[in-house]
């Protein structure tokens, strides 16, 4: 199906089977969670480290170039644009930039100089390389704040989207739900229907392509009717799209009904017991190594990655 096959994110790569594929989905889920959470209150170096880490994982896993060029290309472009624009646009402080303390000459010129202070009381520490305005050329101004904001936004966007994407690229949908089910198992004691939730998520993941297919079919049906949108005007166009949306909902409900019938015929038991056994959850040596590496990851985050370091 065209729409789905051309989507640049959220696809599962079945071949080649990389070392990331072979990791236990629970371990991958822990890593994903850590990669998504660790940027909170982190410094810029840590954020860049995460971007580099994700790229390094992609390269060492030998994910085919055609796949990550398609997926990472547009994302890198988007993030770079976000970094440049946020850095160049006003930083939102709306103040005139000035030195934080009076200059030594200004202090010396105070008349009469207060007697109670020794002459060295207002000595200004030697100047450092710090400058609030990082770049001021022509009409372009980059400040510390706008640069930091740009770095935060662009790296966060990349980490969130690409981290999740890399996880989905190397983990089959049912493995994701099995891992979630296993990790949610303690909630069973609180009468949370864990198996039902996992099955519902799995079925929903299968349903997404069907929704896209139905949407694509309806869009094609509109395209082939050569509707003169200009002539229809806003109100007429809205009516057409409303009718299409109604049709889409009807078709989806019909599909859901047919899927339910198929499930009944194919030996569906009950929602809270129908646990499809297919994915194997087994911690191997590589998984333990990955967990040890995760401890190291969090140690580095706490020691070096915090804000103000």
């Amino acid at each position, binding site marked *: 199906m065209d729409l789905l096959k051309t989507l640049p994110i959220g696809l599962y790569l079945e071949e080649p089977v990389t070392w990331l594929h072979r990791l236990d989905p629970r371990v991958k889920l822990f890593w994903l969670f850590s990669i998504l959470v660790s940027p909170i209150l982190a410094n810029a170096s840590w954020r860049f480290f995460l971007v580099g880490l994700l790229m390094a994982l992609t390269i060492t896993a030998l994910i085919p170039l055609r796949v990550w060029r398609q997926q990472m290309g547009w994302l890198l472009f988007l993030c770079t644009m976000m970094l440049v624009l946020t850095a160049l646009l006003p930083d939102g402080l709306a103040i005139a930039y000035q030195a934080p303390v009076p200059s030594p000459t200004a202090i010396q010129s105070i008349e009469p100089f207060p007697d109670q202070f020794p002459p060295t009381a207002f000595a200004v520490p030697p100047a450092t390389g710090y400058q609030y305005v990082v770049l001021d050329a022509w009409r372009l101004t980059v400040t510390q704040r706008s640069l930091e904001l740009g770095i935060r936004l662009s790296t966060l966007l990349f980490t969130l989207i690409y981290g999740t994407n890399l996880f989905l690229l190397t983990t089959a949908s049912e493995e994701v739900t099995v891992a979630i089910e296993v990790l949610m198992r303690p909630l069973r004691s609180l009468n949370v229907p864990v198996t039902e939730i996992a099955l519902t998520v799995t079925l929903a993941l299968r349903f997404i392509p069907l929704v896209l297919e139905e949407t694509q079919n309806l869009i094609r049906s509109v395209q082939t009717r050569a509707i003169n949108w200009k002539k229809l005007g806003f109100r007429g166009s809205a009516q057409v799209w409303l009718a299409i949306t109604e049709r889409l909902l009807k078709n989806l409900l019909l599909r859901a009904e047919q899927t339910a019938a198929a499930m009944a015929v*194919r030996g569906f038991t009950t929602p809270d017991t129908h646990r499809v056994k297919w994915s194997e959850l087994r911690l191997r040596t590589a998984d333990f190594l990955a967990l040890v590496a995760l401890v190291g990851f969090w140690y580095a985050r706490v020691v070096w990655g915090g804000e103000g370091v």
Partner: protein
Amino acid sequence: MTDHTGTADLPPAIQVDDVSFAWTPTARVLERCSLAVPPGEFCMLLGDNGSGKSTLLKLLTGLLDPQQGQVSIHGTFGYVFQNPDHQLVMPTVGADVAFGLVAENLPLPTVRSRVSEALAAVNLAHLARRPIYALSGGQKQRVAIAGAIARHCEVLLLDEPTALLDPDSQIELVKLVQTLVKERHLTALWVTHRLVELDYCDRAVLLRGGHVVREGEPASLRQILAASD
């Protein structure tokens, strides 16, 4: 009726006795319909649109209840829908084939071997990890059949499984089912509109006006239908 399998003494694998069904009191779909398919036979069910073919299959699977008469299937059955997208419910091929095995409560290694065996039987062993959306129409139908085989079903009910396929995939699929019927001693009831598919079955049945009007050797039925067109 010709006995192709040497199982003439056994009770029919599929039995439909005097069945009537109507969606509304004025719209009768099946009218005192009777049909028997012996074990090991590959039977094709033909008929015009609205003649009751799909309704009959739904009655056999238990999705509908007959308003009169009885239907019975001896042994476990698998059902293949016209549009495989309606019946493939899991995100990847292997998981979908394993979907029907939950009720048997098998250990994971057994499930995996049953799935591998079923996929090998439909020549898709190499696609166990593939997402369903990335399959072609013919491959989806094979996965649907693999789902039935994995459950070790004895009866296959197929509702126009080639309706959405190109001619090559159509013949490929009908040949595959023919082979499975012979090798695994299955009984298959295949609903179709396409006369070319009759070349591969053991017996053909023509449904018209809600009941069986003719049945017999596929070649003779094909000649009659071709002449009436």
